[in-house]
């Protein structure tokens, strides 16, 4: 009979066997444990917001009625027939259109000829696309900027939360937002200046090289969104609030409106506009186009940023 060791209780083997029998927990008292929060029932939903669903539930058993099932099958069948026939009609139409690049096509007429041949001379813009949209057809482009403004206002109607709901939305935003992400922050710190610089370059060079207000503004808006995602609202609020958004769009659109109204008015009344076109190719050339490009760029950038912010928490 071997001698029983006196230091057995408390040894590793003792602990191991006791752990196997479930008497010992090696981690007891060593870990920070947290009791799960008690499940809270969500606040009762406002029934008026869901009256359509309620009405549907009260109505017939939609999924098991034979009539409704037949109707649905017929509906799907007819939709397929309709889609296929419309596609065929459109494809046949496209096949019958003048061929792309055909020199005899009706689209190659005196209109595009003048844009190409005299565009530089008449608008002062090396990039004739910019010359077309901001000088020959500037009224349409003003309409397009207003479409953006109108869409931004609609998003405000739909998503902006008033002050009472703001605090809750902010709380919500902080829970779900992974902030202080080191990789994102460092990457944004390096990329953000370049993105903005590139956007500004594209806007300012709109009349000289491919680009212009719409594309440059989109790049600047994307840069702002990246900055917001990396550093959070507290940092962006220092330079971009709702007020900034409103006044920048207001200023840009009002400048566009006034400048172009002046040019429309003088043009229609056959008065000289008195705006020098400058030397083609210089940065300060092509009359109003340079400034209009800046306006369009600002509107587009602000609108993109506002869309993102509205969708994220309903306020700046």
């Amino acid at each position, binding site marked *: 009979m071997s001698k029983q060791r006196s230091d057995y209780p408390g040894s590793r083997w003792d602990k191991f066997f006791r752990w196997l029998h479930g008497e010992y927990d090696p981690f007891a008292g060593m870990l920070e444990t947290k009791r799960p929060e008690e499940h809270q029932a969500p606040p009762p939903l406002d029934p*008026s*917001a*869901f*009256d*359509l669903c309620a009405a549907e539930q009260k109505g017939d058993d939609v999924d098991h009625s034979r009539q409704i099932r037949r109707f649905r099958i017929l509906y799907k069948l007819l939709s397929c027939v309709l889609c296929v026939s419309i596609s065929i*009609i*459109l494809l*046949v*139409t496209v096949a*019958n*259109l*003048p061929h792309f690049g055909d020199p005899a*096509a*009706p*689209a*190659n*007429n*005196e*209109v*595009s000829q*003048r*844009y190409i041949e005299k565009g530089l001379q*008449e608008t002062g813009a090396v990039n004739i696309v910019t010359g077309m949209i901001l*000088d*020959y*057809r*500037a*009224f*349409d482009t*003003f*309409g*397009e900027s*207003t*479409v953006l*403004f*109108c*869409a931004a*206002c*609609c998003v*405000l*109607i*739909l998503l*902006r939360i*008033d002050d009472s709901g703001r605090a809750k939305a902010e709380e919500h935003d902080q829970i779900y937002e992974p902030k202080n992400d080191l990789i994102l922050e460092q990457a944004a710190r390096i990329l953000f200046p370049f993105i903005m610089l590139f956007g500004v370059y594209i806007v300012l060079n709109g009349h000289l090289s491919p680009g212009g207000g719409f594309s440059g503004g989109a790049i600047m808006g994307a840069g702002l969104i990246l900055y917001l995602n990396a550093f959070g609202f507290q940092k962006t609020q220092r330079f971009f609030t709702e007020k900034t958004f*409103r006044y920048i*769009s*207001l200023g840009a*659109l*009002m400048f566009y*409106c006034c400048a172009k*109204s002046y*040019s*429309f*008015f*003088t*043009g*229609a*009344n*056959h008065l000289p*506009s008195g705006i020098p076109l400058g030397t083609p190719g210089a940065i300060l050339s092509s009359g109003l186009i340079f400034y209009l490009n800046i306006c369009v760029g600002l509107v587009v950038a602000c609108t993109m940023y506002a869309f993102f912010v509205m969708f994220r928490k309903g306020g700046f």
Partner: protein
Amino acid sequence: MPFVCNFPFFSIVLSMFCGIVSSVLSGKNAKKLSIGLLCVNLCLSASVLAYTLSSGESYVYMMGHFPAPWGNEIRAGVLEGVLASFFCVIMLLALVGGLRHIAQEIESGKQNLYFIMVDLLLASLLALIYTNDLFTAYVFVEINTIAACGMIMIRQTGRSYVAAARYMVMSLLGSGLFLISLSTLYGLTGQLLMTPAQGAVAALRASGQYMEPLTVTIALMTVGLAIKSGLYPFHSWMPETYGYSTASSSAILSSLVSKGYIILLIKIYYRVLGSESIMHGKIVNLLFVFGLAGMIMGSISAIRESDIRRMIAFSSVAQIGYIYMGLGLGTEAGVIASLFHILSHAASKGLLFISATGLSDVSGGSKRFKDLRGAGYRNPMAAAGFTVGAMSMVGLPLFAGFISKLLFATAGVQDPTKMLPTLICLAVSTVLNTVYFLRTVLTIFTPVDADAASKAKARQITRGFSLKLSVLCFIVLNLVLGLFSDPIVEALQSGLHMFS
């Protein structure tokens, strides 16, 4: 060029400018600005009308330093003047009539957004009326659609969101078809300005080249604009949209927004595609058939409704049917009847929506017929307005609706094959109109016992002066259209001649 020629341009740009400025104004100031803008625009359009009537011809206005095939252009004639002045009046009255509801139903921080939408909608309607450029028309169709959506959903109830989503889907489908047709048309003609495009289309027809794409273009354009204006099989968004948005929005949308597209369609027919070949082509027969179907089916759906606003909305389906039926007759008299009906329907539909709101205000805010019983004694002005609107819709003499039905019937008998269907459908539709409007008028004038009346009155929203004023002006407008229709019809006729 006299200074008055600048006015169409001023009125469009001024509306856009006011919309932009309203974004930094408070709700109250934005409201004042909108109302002021509508008054100014009314004066400007009226002077354009007076000028074109006296000069007897239309003029084009260069938007910039470049002439027709290169730069943008707008154009003004008698028809444009009549429509622009009329639209300003209707919009002003509809807005004034619903001011109290705008204040109550829209969140205070978003009131100025509503007036931005009103200003931009006005700008887009004026641009659709005045434009002489196909792509400008498309840009302003976009503004029109987005602004209308904003006006629907700004009430921020579940129903108005659903209505806005439905409207958006249908309207974007229409815009998409319209855009496809514009691009094929550009591919075929290489022109975006209406005047040179007309020449190019005529040359295409003469040479007989590319006829299939041209036919598809005409069809897509017609179907796209018909979807956007709510012609019968595409009307499903109408009852929701007009039933659940705020009163002014319903009135403006039903009386003006859907009409803007019809005017654009007529303009494109006359100014681009060539009225002769369109009117003798097959596409008008399509419009004729669907117009007739809309006249009957809209009225039948209206009879089945138990909600007053939805009933009026279904009546709009029928009235849009009338307008397309007139276009479908394929004669000049038919088009003039349609144009007159655009005016008379706008005058009576705006009146109906505004006074129906007045009636439901004194019935505890309910729009159900059972709650509206006796509402005529609680708000006599709104009841009078509703009765006048109903009589005009049915087509009793003295009111605007009578003249338009008379014009439709007169235009109908000129065409031997289309005469019988036109007259039969007009008669049937009139009887159906009478059924549901008479029922409503009887309901609101059915006496109720004093107890229920006082209960309803206790819950009523305070009646406003603005609603009474608006209803009164609408009644006068209806009577003017009904009693002094001759000069208006003549103006429409001369305007249409200036088109081609």
